[in-house]
């Protein structure tokens, strides 16, 4: 329920942004993380960025969630 997955910001459009997460592009809301820029990494919960995160950490965490979500869907 409280899942939050790292994503990379590709394009910002005021309060929303296009992000790439686990190989998929999505539109998310970025109003809870003021000051984020294109290229930054954030963690995303239910369509909202809730925190900024370093690139290295984002990549390592992303692998875990990919495996987790794949298993949940099966």
């Amino acid at each position, binding site marked *: *329920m*409280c899942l939050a997955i790292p994503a990379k910001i590709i394009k910002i459009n005021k309060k929303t942004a296009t992000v790439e997460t686990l190989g998929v592009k999505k539109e998310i809301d970025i109003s809870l993380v003021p000051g984020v820029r294109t290229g930054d990494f954030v963690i995303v919960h*239910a369509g*909202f960025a*809730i925190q900024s995160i370093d690139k290295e950490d984002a990549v390592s*965490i992303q692998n*875990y969630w990919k495996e*987790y979500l794949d*298993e949940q869907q099966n």
Partner: protein
Amino acid sequence: MNSKTRELILSLNNNKPARKINIMEVCGTHTMAISRYGLRQLIPENINLISGPGCPVCVTPAGDIDWIMEIMEQYEISLFTFGDMLRVPGTRSSLYGKRSEGKDINICYSPSDALDFARKNPVKKVIFLAIGFETTIPLTAVIVKRAYLEKINNFYIFNTHKLIPEALELLVNDREIKIDAFLCPGHVSVIIGSKPYGFLAKNYGIPCVISGFEPEDILQSIAMILEQIKKETAEIEIQYRRVVKEEGNPAAVRLIYEIFDKSDSTWRGLGNISGSGLKLKDRFLKFDAGTQFPVKKIRSGEPAGCECGNVLKGIKRPFECRLFSKTCKPESPVGTCMVSREGSCAAYYKYERKHKNIKSDTKNLYKNR
């Protein structure tokens, strides 16, 4: 299992605590990871990992489900909520049952979906069934504020949001369970940071570690807890520094309290907990579905024989419920802890049934490798 995980397991087994230690996790995703990787079976027997009320779906009382269903019955409503909520049993039926009767009940990925629908369909009355802990509350706050600023008059929330630290205080004061330490939730703490848990260390001497979700995160957090216990200290430590900051997300916290005030809230199994919920501030009350769509409350009750209440408090393990894996299964859940994929009963059902009676054997197997 990688070498770091292996090392952590060996180290925990070589530094076994002198007494039995009860560590409660209060996050459904931790519960899942502990079950999925069999961590309970890999750590010393006297470290007892107990699942607490860490899944928002699981702690939703039947009364809330009955209430929203009564609203759906009496008014023409389009309801939006997260998937698992549809299967939560009310006293008579579930939202899933209501949907099959033809009610307009929609699963959304984001709370924004509900507001977007309201914006595009001004003649419809749209309710977002807002559920979740601090991780999700700021999202609801964003959409309420947006609805207010945009003067959207057909959007409402049915608010069941709950706050974690207040529930933890109730649990440490419970005489039936003895909690030595908390494994604090990672994503709730992304929002609130480490300070709101401070009273647990200061007033109750309970060590707390905010943990990540991978097996080595959880094992390392357990090691950090044991170290505090060994040194006879109690602090709030952050193991999940990759994501959690001490101050949390101050912008998100500010927004929560711009929209909501603290209030009491009823938790399934735990009862009413003072200050553990939120209510919309007076100027946002026009968005409150409970106020705007008055209904006569029906008499609610929990399913007979269901032990979710005791499971949520850590008093009983899922195996100890006589309905577990008999009449209560993931495909036909009786209690909420089996409804949510991250509920304790669902996690035990999926991963730990085979370990029911062989905890020590599994551990010995590992040690001999």
